[in-house]
């Protein structure tokens, strides 16, 4: 293993669960306001996961009071407290940006069959 990979591997977080586009996730983000630190939760559908070494990011979209909100999170950021996978969606694409054009009932994503059984 070369040194560059070694340095990158130290940065990569091993405790993050695996998920992909279409999944519903709950992201717990640490937010520092002056002295205080609190945790904010952002729950939504993953639009895409950009793979890279330390550079990986993922986009989460949710509908907040009827307005679509998207947030980009660095996958290996130390400021991610934890990520919960709420459900796995059944989608055909790796990037489901078509979801931006849909709303209401059309914007639903079916969950994977085995996920329902698990519950």
């Amino acid at each position, binding site marked *: 293993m070369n040194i*560059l990979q070694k*340095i990158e591997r130290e940065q990569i977080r091993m405790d993050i669960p695996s998920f992909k586009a279409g999944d519903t996730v709950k992201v717990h983000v640490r937010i520092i306001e002056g002295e205080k630190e609190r945790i904010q939760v952002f729950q939504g559908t993953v639009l895409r996961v950009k793979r890279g070494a330390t550079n990986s990011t993922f986009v989460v979209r949710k509908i907040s009071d009827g307005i679509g909100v998207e947030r980009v999170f*660095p996958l290996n950021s130390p400021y991610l407290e934890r990520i919960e996978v709420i459900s796995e969606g059944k989608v055909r694409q790796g990037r489901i940006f078509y979801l931006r054009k849909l709303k209401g009932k059309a914007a639903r994503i079916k969950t994977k069959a085995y996920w329902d059984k698990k519950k």
Partner: protein
Amino acid sequence: MKRTVGLIGRKLGMTTLFADDGTKVPVTVIQAGPCPVVQKKTVEKDGYSAVQVGFDQLPGHKLNKPQKGHQGKQDKGYFRILREFSLENTDEYEPGQELTTEIFKPGDRVRLTGTSKGKGFAGVMKRWNFAGSPSSHGHEKVHRKPGAIGQCAYPGKVFKGKKMPGQMGNKKVTYANAEVVAVRPADNVIIIKGQVPGPTNGIVVLRKKN
């Protein structure tokens, strides 16, 4: 500029690290040292004082006899690259002594010298960011040309230093104020914030700033 000691290194590539406040920092990883002192130059003998250090070991048979004689005195192996660091006071350095990454520490500012990537013979648009001419509306054969390069009978010449096409890159470039983000003495690695001139595997000289 203060004359200081430094290290020779090889650029390994770029990556990003997370800072303490969660921001991403673009960094360049440099394999630097260990650089043994090959020779000490003195005012009495050479007319100036400096230390000559070596980097990148290679088998002895690749060197010719005079080079082998010069580098072999310290029994530290043979080197592909030799560089001199001009110093006012060379007392603390002895031939054979190894300079390692420990001379730098995180937060230091360094002078970085490398050879930039060669772009070949480049036109004015690439080399000097000229605007060129429109691609249509009657423009023919002039889309990437420099246009006029001077006036008429007075001054009757093209001024010196006029920006013209020519060789771009493959030139010595120095960054005066690069920041050291981390030092890893176990791997002989220095991590610099931002970019470093030259291609991956290019040779870089890092000099202490003060």
